[in-house]
């Protein structure tokens, strides 16, 4: 479990010499064990926010804190450890390594976290855990298949299993259903629902689809690099206008 606090986050990219502000002072709170959907149109800054939350990028200004601990206080190597142990990523385009099997893709995060000797020591248990995660996702019969042999929904379920192999307290999902049809997307959200289960894992999911967002506990709407909080009932309350 982990709570997330985001305060006055700014992020500007440069397009050649032209600065392009993407986040303009976004702030939000995510409670521990909460499933939050960040809803916004393309270019609203929601994916950038997710990358900053996952420590893949650094803000120009503002602060992100997990359980009160600021990411900005972490060194580069601490950030690597943070990504290994604290967060799991699910991407819109799955981002599986095409040469690895389903099982190997799932285990990749554990290999990175434990290193050679640590992994070899726990290889048996980890393979069992990966097989169980994949089984829960309905992929027991696909363990030795390559990503190219899977459907889009199956690939995304592998990506989810990979994100969970290290049992992170936070799952960050970037348009997880964006590349799937509605039925498969709904099935995938069922997997999200089920995997919260007893762990009370915090989930931050980025989407541009209101119906997908409505599956979360809470919806945070973003526009022009700013954040608005919206209740899942559809009653929208603007918390921090520009």
């Amino acid at each position, binding site marked *: 479990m982990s709570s997330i606090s985001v305060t006055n986050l700014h992020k500007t990219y440069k397009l050649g010499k032209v600065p392009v502000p993407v986040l303009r002072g976004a702030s939000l709170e995510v409670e521990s064990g909460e499933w939050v959907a960040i809803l916004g149109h393309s270019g609203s800054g929601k994916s950038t926010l997710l990358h900053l939350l996952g420590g*893949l*990028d650094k803000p120009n200004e503002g602060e992100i804190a997990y359980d009160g601990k600021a990411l900005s206080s972490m060194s580069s190597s601490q950030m690597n450890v943070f*990504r290994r142990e604290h967060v799991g*990523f699910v991407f819109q385009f799955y*981002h599986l390594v095409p040469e690895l099997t389903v099982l190997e893709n799932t285990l*990749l995060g554990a*290999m*990175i*976290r434990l290193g050679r000797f640590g992994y070899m020591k726990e290889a048996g248990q980890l393979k069992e855990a990966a097989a169980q995660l994949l089984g829960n996702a309905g992929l027991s019969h696909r363990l030795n298949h390559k990503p190219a042999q899977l459907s889009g929904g199956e690939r995304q379920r592998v990506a989810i299993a*990979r994100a969970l192999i290290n049992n992170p307290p936070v799952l960050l999902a970037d348009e997880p259903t964006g590349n799937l049809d509605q039925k498969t997307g709904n099935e995938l959200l069922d997997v999200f629902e089920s995997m919260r289960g007893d762990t009370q894992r915090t989930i931050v999911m980025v989407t541009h689809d209101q119906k997908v967002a409505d599956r979360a506990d809470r919806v945070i709407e973003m526009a022009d690099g700013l954040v608005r909080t919206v209740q899942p009932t559809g009653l929208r309350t603007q918390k921090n206008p520009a």
Partner: protein
Amino acid sequence: MFQSLLTRRYLTSKVMPLLASAAVMLSVAMELITWSVMGGFLEQLIQSGRTLMGDIEISRPQRGFPDYKELMALLEEDEMIEAASPTIDAYGLVKLNAQQVTTCRIKGIDPESFDRVTGYYNTLYWTPRDEALPRDKERKDPRLDPAKHEALGQLQKLGENLDGIDLDTGSDRPQAVLGIEVFGKRGLRTPEGFVMDFPTFLPGFDVTLNVLPIDTSGGFLEPVARKLQIGNEFSSNIYEIDSQTIYVPLDVLQDMLKMDEAEKVDTSGRVEFVYDDNGNPIGTKPRETVGVVPAKVTSVLVRAAGDNIPLEDLRARVEEIYERFAAGNEDMPLLGSVNVYTWEDRNATLIGAIRKETALVLFIFGIISMTSVFLVLAIFWSMISERTKDIGILRALGASGPGVAWFWVRYGLVIGTVGSVLGIGLGYVVITNINAIHDWMSSALGIAIWDPSVYYFAEIPEEMNLTKTLIIGAAGIVSCGLGALIPAWRAASMDPVRALRFE
């Protein structure tokens, strides 16, 4: 752990790493073949030089020195010396028939002691053979024919003794042993470029030697010609020796060059004329014989008592023995007019040149091999561009920058290892079959690169040893690691967000 898994999978899934391995393989094989052939060339040259002249040569060209038998006895008493042998070196014209006349180095030898110093018997060509030469796959060599073994055995004896019977008349007759290439046989090429494998048969033919003796004051005497029977031929595998050397009995050459034993006359006092009855001078009175001028040789060759005796120590010992001997013998010239050489001194110019040439060629190939570094760099640069998304995934999963960099360097080292192992294998196959490959190129493609008359040895020499192989293999691996460094640094410093968004 992820590094080894991805290395295995990347290595077999794409053609690019295989191309990189192939580049390293060719580079390693090329260097190994070059070094082995050049090294083999040098080694064979050194060994041959040593075989042909022993370890040390006491030399006084043209005029020679006497009392060599006593000197040899003294030398052979020393524990550092295995054997000594007297020789005479002279240059002359050699005539086989009206069309075939050539200049040659005529070497007078005592076959028995010459064999102990140089292994002369092993160089005799016309001897019975049971095993075919490596290149003689079809066993065309006439020496393999059991029906000819008896006759070949007789020729072997003629060669070993340099004395025997005239094959036509049955009378005693000294024999000559010609270098196998003297009349240009093995070097003869067919129009297709193929080198004739087996020489024509010369034993039994006569050969006429012409030499120009000099007197004790250095003046030229009348040329001396003598016809000898060819008893056998020899092959040292050094073209320059085999094409320019003839062995004859020591006493025959001593006689021809006026270096044999002679009466010593009293040259002091006035010349006394002899007159006829009318008082006219018709000649001079023979001078009084006061002793004997011993026979001379131009060289004494010395073989060390073992392979571990340092040459310089041996030379010092031989000089010491000679000085001691010369001090007690007024006929012997002093050191200075007699020189003591090691076999390395004798071949210093050539050995030095080949050593430098080997180093130069390796340096040039080393630079060429640097292309494999840049090739790996280019291939890896391209692969990293192709794998940008994978790098983003690894970073998102918590892999550190150095961890990602190490994966690529390790991948480069594995490609280098695969390429080096394959290159060593390829090099081994080529090196161990280099003469067969060359023969095939000659016969099938008409390309004969190795010309014995140019390259000194009749066959392409090779010497593949473990140290060279390990050095070249390690260089192949390291060059790949170096080639992977810059791309690895690029991968490590890649922005993970950009990498994940890369299309």
